[in-house]
């Protein structure tokens, strides 16, 4: 006997914990919008979502970068995708060990960042999350 078809008109999930590891940055702008769209969508479906910026991803939380970056020419600014995610309840963590490699001081991060965290904090999140996505 086959399982009944899922009715995708309705949202019917238990609350989940999701970590999105954001490694992409200004050198690949086409990869910088969808992670925030997905984060907003997951958060609005009751997921507890954290986006952890590491590697080149930390450039996106540096003041003045996402404000002047679009995934496509003439498109919506990346900072606005990020703010949509924040409004939906997504938390932003910036990777402390990644900052020096890009000459970024913690005081030069955008206000949307909730925490500057260690690599160990990311490891804890990965091990305690239901889903981990890498972009």
């Amino acid at each position, binding site marked *: 006997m086959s399982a009944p078809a899922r009715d*995708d*008109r*309705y*949202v*019917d999930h238990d609350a989940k914990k999701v970590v999105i590891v954001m490694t992409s940055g200004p050198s690949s702008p086409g990869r910088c*919008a969808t992670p925030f*769209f*997905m984060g*907003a*969508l997951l*958060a*609005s*479906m*009751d997921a507890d979502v954290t986006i952890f910026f590491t590697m080149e991803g930390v450039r996106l939380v540096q003041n003045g970068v996402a404000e002047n970056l679009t995934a496509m020419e003439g*498109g*919506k600014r990346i900072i606005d*995708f990020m703010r*949509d995610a924040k*409004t*939906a*309840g997504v938390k932003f963590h910036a990777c402390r060990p990644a900052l020096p490699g890009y000459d970024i001081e913690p005081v030069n991060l955008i206000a949307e960042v909730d925490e500057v965290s260690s690599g160990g904090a990311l490891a804890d999140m990965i091990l305690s999350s239901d889903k981990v996505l890498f972009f």
Partner: protein
Amino acid sequence: MRPCNNCEFRPDLYYDAEYQIWVRIEEGGLLSLGMTDISQTRAGRILHVRVRRPGSRRPKGKPVATVETGKWAGPVPNPFDCTIEAANEAVLAAPGRINRDPYGEWIARVRPEQGLAQAVAGLRTGPEAEAGFCARCRDDGIECRRMDA
């Protein structure tokens, strides 16, 4: 041209503090929720709407539905503790109806857990709500427009 930056306001409805959603009292102890003209304009052309499954308990602050456009995704917030009674099937099938008629198209119908009076007590309505609604449009530079599906 509507007075508040071309955004329509309905004085008979109830609104959350940010004028994202409207709430209407229905018969049988139910409330309908929908998106305001401000929300549908800011969202853009709505491509998908999904409502929590009827029968689901939704605590205050937990979304009753999710909305997607091409470049935006977000919740339909819930200002009170309630249980989902129904989704508007017409909207699920053709979400762009919200862009055409945001106050004519409810999204979810819910039963508040603490009764109607308590559910709407924390919401805004009437002239006070209209002043706040227009201030939001003005302060955020929101110019409303309706879209065909």
